[in-house]
């Protein structure tokens, strides 16, 4: 039992051996990978679209999900193999443009492969499949086909999940999922297809939960929501639910460009859906301004918050030819709101006197106010603007060129100089 000086011996030695061992293990991994790759490519080039090759693509894709050629091979394998062949006259699908597109992405070899493939799984087809007419047998086989396809699609979707967990931003995996989801619309009854898309929304939420600034995931979520709202999936508007979702995400982390951006995109639709009248719209704007003001109160250095505030301000100021939250606002209303915002932002300076974005906002919005009132800044405003600009020059000397341009363009050179 006793081993004099055993530990130093044990730890130092083991780590050295491990490094060499690791090298050998790596080389072995590389060899196995290359072998697998060669196998798959060889089979595919010989049009061997068999279940065995299908399994090989599974293994290869697990090791390298970025290998998009193999994803394409897998698509072909599915279409020529596990998925039921759409039979003439008994098709349950709505012929959507997307489906014909996906059909054309398969190469001509796919068509020829079904005749030359050696071990395609048998189609669950009844003898009457292929003939027109609506006999009971036809309906049964359609149902069987749909069930088969549903199972296949679900299994494929499950296959991609562990891959996504490891490589959440890999385009090829998401693209494959989308392809599967579109097949669901094409081949399954509406209810079944809808369920699959609802699960997809759940997945998008999970991805965002793991990394809420993954803008791929936000874009993907918007796409999924759009599909769920579409007639093809028997949907209706989800604007309210999505609006609440952005709220949840913001409370989780204020600094979330994508969440605020999504929110801004949903607002016009939401107001339309609610058939909000002018009073309701004003109340809504008040609430949003209150929310962003609270956020800026604790995070004035955060650019995503200022972007959203800017979006709301532009609603007030850039209203010609753009849909806005409060189209019925009078000039007086707009001026009142802009003035109040500037005041509230000024209050932040009480406690945050060196946050650059505050000064930038004050500068911008004061100019916007003047623009709104179709006038130039008055002498008092000019002194203020100069003061803020001077502060920006101190806080951000790297952008001295930009501040110099601003100084010149707004004719404030003299005022700024006077502050030296």
């Amino acid at each position: 039992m006793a081993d004099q000086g055993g530990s130093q011996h044990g730890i130092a030695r083991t780590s050295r051996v491990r490094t060499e061992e690791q090298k050998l293990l790596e080389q072995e991994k590389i060899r196995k990978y290359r072998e697998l790759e060669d196998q798959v490519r060889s089979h595919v080039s010989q049009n061997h679209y068999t279940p065995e090759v299908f399994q090989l693509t599974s293994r290869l894709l697990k090791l390298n999900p970025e290998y998009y050629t193999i994803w394409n091979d897998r698509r072909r394998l599915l279409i020529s193999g596990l998925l039921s062949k759409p039979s003439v006259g008994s098709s349950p699908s709505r012929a959507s443009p997307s489906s014909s597109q996906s059909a054309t992405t398969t190469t001509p070899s796919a068509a020829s492969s079904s005749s030359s493939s050696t071990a395609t799984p048998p189609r669950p087809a009844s003898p009457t499949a292929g003939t027109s007419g609506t006999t009971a047998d036809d309906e049964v086989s359609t149902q069987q086909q749909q069930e088969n396809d549903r199972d296949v699609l679900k299994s494929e979707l499950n296959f991609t999940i562990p891959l996504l967990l490891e490589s959440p931003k890999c385009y090829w995996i998401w693209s494959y999922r989308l392809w599967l989801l579109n097949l669901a619309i094409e081949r399954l009854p509406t209810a079944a297809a809808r369920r699959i898309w609802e699960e997809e929304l759940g997945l998008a939420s999970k991805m965002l939960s793991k990394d809420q600034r993954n803008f791929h995931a936000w874009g993907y979520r918007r796409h999924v929501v759009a599909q769920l709202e579409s007639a093809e999936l028997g949907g209706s508007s989800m604007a309210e639910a999505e609006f609440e979702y952005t709220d949840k995400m913001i409370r989780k982390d204020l600094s979330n460009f994508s969440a605020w951006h999504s929110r801004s995109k949903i607002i016009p639709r939401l107001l339309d859906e609610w058939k909000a009248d002018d009073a309701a719209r004003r109340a809504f704007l008040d609430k949003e301004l209150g929310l962003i003001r609270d956020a800026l109160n604790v995070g004035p250095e955060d650019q995503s918050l200022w972007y959203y505030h800017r979006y709301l301000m532009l609603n007030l100021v850039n209203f010609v030819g753009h849909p806005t939250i409060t189209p019925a606002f009078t000039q007086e209303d707009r001026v009142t709101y802009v003035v109040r915002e500037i005041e509230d932002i000024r209050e932040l300076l009480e406690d945050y006197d060196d946050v650059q974005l505050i000064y930038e906002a004050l500068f911008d919005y004061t100019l916007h106010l003047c623009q709104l009132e179709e006038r130039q800044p008055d002498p008092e405003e000019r002194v203020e603007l100069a003061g803020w600009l001077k502060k920006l020059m101190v806080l951000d000397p790297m952008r001295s060129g930009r501040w110099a341009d601003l100084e010149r363009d707004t004719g404030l050179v003299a005022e700024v100089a006077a502050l030296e």
Partner: protein
Amino acid sequence: MDFSSELSDTLWDVVICGTGLPQSLLALSLSRSGKNILHIDPNDYYGSAEAAFSLQEADDWVARHSTTAASSTSVFKSASITKPENVVGLSFPRAYTLALAPQLIHARSELLSQLVSSRAYRQVEFLAVGSFFVFKPSSSPSLAPTLVRIPSTREDVFSTTAISAKAKRGLMKFLKFVVDYNSSPQTESWHPYADVPLVDFLREHFKMDAELQTYIITLTLSLDGRISTKDGLATIHRHLSSMGMLGPNFAAVYPKWGGISEIAQVSCRAGAVGGAVYMLGNGIKEMTVGENEISLELTSGDKVRTRRLFRGEGTGGDETGIGRLVAIISSPLKSLFEPTIEGAPKPGVAVIAFPTGSLASAGEADIDCPIYVLAHSSDTGECPIGQSVLYLTTLSSSDSKNTLHRALESMLIALDGEQQRPESLYHLYYEQAGSSMRSQQEDLIFGFPPPSLSLSFDDATLGPVREAWNVVMGEAGVGTDYMAFPDREGYVDDDEMYD
């Protein structure tokens, strides 16, 4: 093979007496060393002063520590158990695991890094410590007191409705200050206040009102409420930099099944796997210290010889102690354990503070220090589903038992929801002596200090363990990574995909 003769024939490299946390961590640290280690404990359970008990074990323990005089053999005294009359609902004894050391462990704690690098973390299940609350006495007799959640992240401050916009800005400025408190220009601001209470610094430099001050002090878990600026800033910095480290919106974790006791057990297990011999229910009866070895006669009658002995030393008493009340509650107290934001794990532990002066004095002496409550849901495994366990702590005094009972009552009133008022089913009270936490070494005997009373695990506990390890390893330890082990053979990882 005769076990007894194996014990006495071997010249042990190390005998460790006691399975408290430092001794157990020592066993863990030596678990790959190949040393001959005999690890004994006079109790018939693991954990010593950090053990966790079923109700039956608690009864036995209380019987041994009920004396009210300061003990010469234990840090514990004045232990008692009471059960309210006419109250039903207490489950069978083994349904409970009451922790003597219910400390929460901050994510940034060195203890967690060591558990990870030694691979021992794999055997421990951790729960998130969620919200920190402050007890707010009712402003009028007709209103109930409330618990107010303390915001400690930007998003918390954003969402809370309990403080004004201006106060929020003040709080944000302080939080930002703390994140960088050891750099200039922050250091220039607080160094003059280093040894002065943190409340003074908050009031004078940050112009914080009393309410915000209590929020900050609560985050420090300062037992006397008078933590110095230097120590207070360090503690809050640890809290803030731990926030989000292991998952969204929580700063600390708690080991399931009895807190620190679980870590001690897992460490001993690792020691055993590494070859150490374990004997519970066995202590040291007599000892003879020679020049190069110690002869021990154990209570079992076995005689062993060892090069070195490591044990828990001292009964403390040189620093203020604490009074603790462990109460089993008949309700799950759901409002304490709600996840705070989307995607955050459900917390198993919540912290509630009664700031100094918040507990109305009932004609008795003013309570001049805070009371802290560590609330544990049944997710901790410490009680059955539908119940919870509260650990109340305050500095010990002649009146601490009474104070803690009153705090418990006020808290249950504050938690009175739509359903029945939560009731307590069981009370365990005891006092624990404080210590200045220094290890002692005399010749071949190394003594670990008594446990820290800090409610959040104090990394200072780890220092003596490292010292002890150095003593054992000597020259051979130089250049070796401490508490860093590779996984043992047979551990499976992801590379199986290639097969």
